């Protein structure tokens, strides 16, 4: 299967008062047709910036300084702005976290869904667009769309707004959807509905979905493969099964040991928080960026580069101790207290 979207060595820098920050650092992954690929990591790790960089939508001060983004073989990085515009919203659409903010408050929702269709010549007339919008709204589960098509965003709940945003994303039959935390602002029962809708659409329409989330549960339930981001890097990339059953990077293992279980049968195992907090991008540690928080770190980890390497078929890790971690069954040694002031809590 050849990749529909092939991101290679993506690097994005932002100049700030504290110097130039490398927000996305040598990131690579592929996204196949009909696949849901998860991008997971803590707040500030660079997930949103990856999405924005793919569409060349970072803040104006940001510069894509390296890499390639091949969409169906065409490099988006070197594509003239006009050609990229023809792709944005047409072939590659984005869904953001805050649906209510993404919608224009003074335009009826139907007009907003129709906009891209008219712009990209998908609909032939306003009447045609209206018909298509109503069909789309029905498809994404908005009840009585004929009546709702002329309503304004404030007349919808948060969950219904997110459905409208999904309808707008689907308007031009895109092949790729970049979904940046599409359910983070929603209640769990609505999140469940929206994610199941997305997965169903992804299967029916053979969409390639990049699902950005910080929730390991959302990854486990919805993605075929996952990339784990830390401080601008992808530190591990594998199938969802492998990530959960045999993590090969201590950060991934750490994340997993922080997630409480909903099932009392899993026992009263005490959670093992990752010590400390993520590095300041203005002053990142040398070597592996995770080493100051890593219970497996040794002197080798404190200098040099740590690129992703294939450590098992289809399983990539940036950790030089991945074998030791695999031998330990993906379980980290107990954290040493020296690593932390913020972590662990009082003994």
């Amino acid at each position, binding site marked *: 299967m050849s990749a529909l979207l092939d991101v290679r060595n993506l690097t994005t820098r932002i100049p700030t008062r504290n110097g130039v920050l490398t927000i996305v650092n040598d990131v690579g992954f592929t996204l196949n047709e009909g696949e849901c690929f998860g991008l997971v990591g803590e707040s500030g790790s660079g997930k949103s910036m990856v999405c924005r960089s793919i569409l060349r939508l970072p803040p104006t001060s940001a510069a894509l300084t390296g890499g390639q983004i091949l969409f169906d073989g065409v490099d988006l990085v070197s594509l003239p702005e006009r050609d990229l515009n023809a792709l944005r919203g047409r072939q590659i659409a984005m869904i953001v976290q805050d649906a209510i903010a993404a919608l224009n408050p003074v335009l009826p929702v139907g007009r907003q869904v129709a906009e891209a269709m008219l712009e990209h010549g998908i609909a032939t007339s306003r009447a045609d667009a209206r018909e298509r919008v109503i069909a789309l709204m029905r498809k994404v589960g908005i009840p009585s769309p004929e009546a709702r098509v002329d309503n304004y965003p404030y007349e919808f709940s948060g969950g219904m707004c997110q459905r409208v945003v999904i309808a707008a994303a689907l308007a031009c039959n895109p092949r790729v959807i970049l979904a940046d935390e599409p359910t983070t602002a929603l*209640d769990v029962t609505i999140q469940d509905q929206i994610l199941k809708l997305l997965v169903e659409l992804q299967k029916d329409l053979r969409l390639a979905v990049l699902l950005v989330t910080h929730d390991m549960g959302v990854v486990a339930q919805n993605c075929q493969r996952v990339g784990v981001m830390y401080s601008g890097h992808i530190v591990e990339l594998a199938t969802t099964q492998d990530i959960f059953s045999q993590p090969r990077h201590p950060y991934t293992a750490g994340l997993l*040991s922080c997630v409480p279980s*909903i099932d009392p049968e899993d026992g009263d195992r005490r959670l093992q928080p990752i010590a400390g907090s993520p590095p300041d991008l203005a002053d990142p540690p040398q070597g592996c960026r995770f080493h100051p928080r890593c219970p497996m770190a040794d002197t080798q980890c404190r200098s040099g580069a740590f690129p992703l390497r294939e450590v098992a078929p289809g399983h990539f890790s940036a950790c030089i101790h991945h074998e030791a971690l695999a031998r330990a069954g993906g379980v980290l040694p107990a954290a040493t207290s020296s690593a932390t002031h913020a972590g662990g809590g009082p003994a």
Partner: protein
Amino acid sequence: MNVHTPPEAAPLIDIRDLSMSFAGRRGLLNHLTRSEPPKVIAVDAVSLQIQRGEIFSLVGESGSGKTTMGRALLRLVEPTGGEVYFRGENLLQFSRSRMMEARRDLQMIFQNPYSSLNPRMTVRQTLAEALSVHRVCPKSEIDARVMALLDLVGLGKTHADRYPRDFSGGQRQRIGIARALSVEPAFIVADEPVSAVDVSVQAQIMNLLLDLRERLDLTLFFIAHDLSVVQYLSTRVGVMYLGRLVEVAPRRELFMRPRHPYTQGLLRAAPRPDPRRRSAAVAILGEPPSPMAPPPGCHFHPRCPMATDVCRTTRPALTTIQTGHLVACHHHQAAADGWTGAGHQP
């Protein structure tokens, strides 16, 4: 995690028919027709006892009334009905000065500690102020107390003279906890203290709360919407829907044998961090109705797969169906019989 208080022990907090309603906003239509805007009954006659040493968690979706419940029972808003007994005395009849004194025993931790911390005060000043307002200790001991508090929540000396903006989200939450603990309260309402932080910080804060409860004999009323957080932390759990308590049970019982279709749906909707157990069907259809026009009978009936005529007309009472397990559902028996776990077959 098993704090078993014999049932005859007097509860630390005894809430009886607590209600809180807000006047809705007056719209143009109300002006024109001189009609009253609809009321929102944010908390609808909730009764609940909390024993010393418990971590009682309240869960429910956005707008179900969790925050209002927490604030009303501490009298941070004036409830519109009911009683709250603290060590046998009705808080709602306390005079201003009595209430001021009682505040020392009744503290709150907020979701967003940043907005509740004074940005112009260092951590030392914030904690020292709390200590001196409530005259917790002699002036000469304040400094030592501040240091002990920082140590208690896992912060160091180096943090004392910094301002809130110099801390990470997790550290600010620790400061909020230190401030609440400074006055040695008997009871703390924690309103979603881990909802806005990353999982690693969430785990740190939850472990901290568990340690503190053990060491300081605290009683916690913990508000959350994440069921796995609640599973990890609680001794007992209450589930709220549109202002009403629909189920209360000890933690294990609630997660193993939920008897309200809403609780069951919440458990099925939570995404499990286990790719081998994926769920296919949507857990609960529809959306919560408007709190300004809640449906008659059981509030949950429009979304409930088991609803029948009686559910559309008659409010089910919260009834004890086995020691410590209360449920407000006309069909709780059928719901319990139909429960086969959170499902998640492929």
